[in-house]
């Protein structure tokens, strides 16, 4: 257990919570506000976030500081990716155009799960009026609705790994 990395993660969390409370940042409300009242401010926040990470990672990939090809998910997909990497075929990180296996190798169950899961997350987050980060911030501001949201949020971990994991892992 490395304690200083835990402290670093905690400090990042505190800074992000502080700034998110000050800027009312929400990753769902940006697009929702644009569709409902044509307010572009939060959408601009989302896109600057995306573009900042995109540009920084492109620069760092090209300088070989940030390593590409390391599995980007949890354990389940990691296993298949390690197998693929050992066989010398890095399917998950090939370019869409140019050399490489191409688009057909990307079409698997996880693509469909990502699309459907994202859709479900978007539609439910619109109804409760904020993404997960925003709900944490609202709870810290004293919103009791978000308190119930977070109780359900943390209960779901225990329920998922006790009862649902056996059935839902077969989706991948």
């Amino acid at each position, binding site marked *: 257990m490395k304690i200083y990395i*835990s402290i*670093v993660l*905690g400090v*990042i*969390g*505190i*800074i*992000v*919570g502080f700034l998110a*409370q*000050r*800027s009312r*940042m929400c*990753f769902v409300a940006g697009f929702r506000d644009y569709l409902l009242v044509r307010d572009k401010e939060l959408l*601009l926040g*989302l896109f*600057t*976030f*995306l573009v*900042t990470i*995109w540009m920084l*990672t492109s620069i*760092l990939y090209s300088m070989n500081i940030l390593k590409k090809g*390391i*599995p*980007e*998910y949890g354990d389940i*997909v990691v296993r298949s990716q390690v197998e693929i990497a050992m066989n010398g075929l890095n399917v998950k990180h090939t370019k*869409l155009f140019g050399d490489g296996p191409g688009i057909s190798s990307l079409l698997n169950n*996880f*693509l469909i799960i*990502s699309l459907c899961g*994202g*859709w*479900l*997350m*978007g*539609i439910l987050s*619109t*109804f*409760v009026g904020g*993404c*997960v*980060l925003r*709900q*944490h911030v609202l*709870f810290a501001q004293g919103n*009791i*609705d978000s308190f*119930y949201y977070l*109780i*359900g*949020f943390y209960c*779901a*971990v*225990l*329920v998922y*790994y006790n009862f649902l*994991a056996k059935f*839902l892992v077969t989706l991948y």
Partner: protein
Amino acid sequence: MRRWYLKPWLFGIIAGCMFVFAEVIFNLYPPTAYTFCLTCHARDFINTIVNLLFKTNYQITFLARRVLMTTSLCVMAGAFIAARIFNEFRFKRSTHPILFFLTGFIIMITGIIIFGCPTRIVIRSGYGDVYGIVALTGIFIGILNGTTMLKLLSKAKFSD
């Protein structure tokens, strides 16, 4: 104290730089793009504690085997500090407790399955992950459908 607001685009730049550089400087991988995620880090935190207490073998990521993930608690702490400093802390009564509970429940399970809360999905799409971009597209389609339903609901409410 005088009110001080941060523009959302500044939040985007600060948080984006912080997440990428934290991963590079402190070697926060594998998995990559994992410096900030509220579902995954909460999952790791709870599963680490449960594994310690009950000797179970629930799924945690490689990073969580050497680090205690305290992100979600610290986000709440940071937001609480900000709300207290700028006098924005006030209790708001609950309107639909069961609805919010169920929504949080479903969103956590979805987040565990697709590996990320909306924040991490944006981070992953920034890293050039195809599945992240697909999930972000899914979120946009979901918001589109959700706002349409909200509009229809409000129209039905006002016509009565």
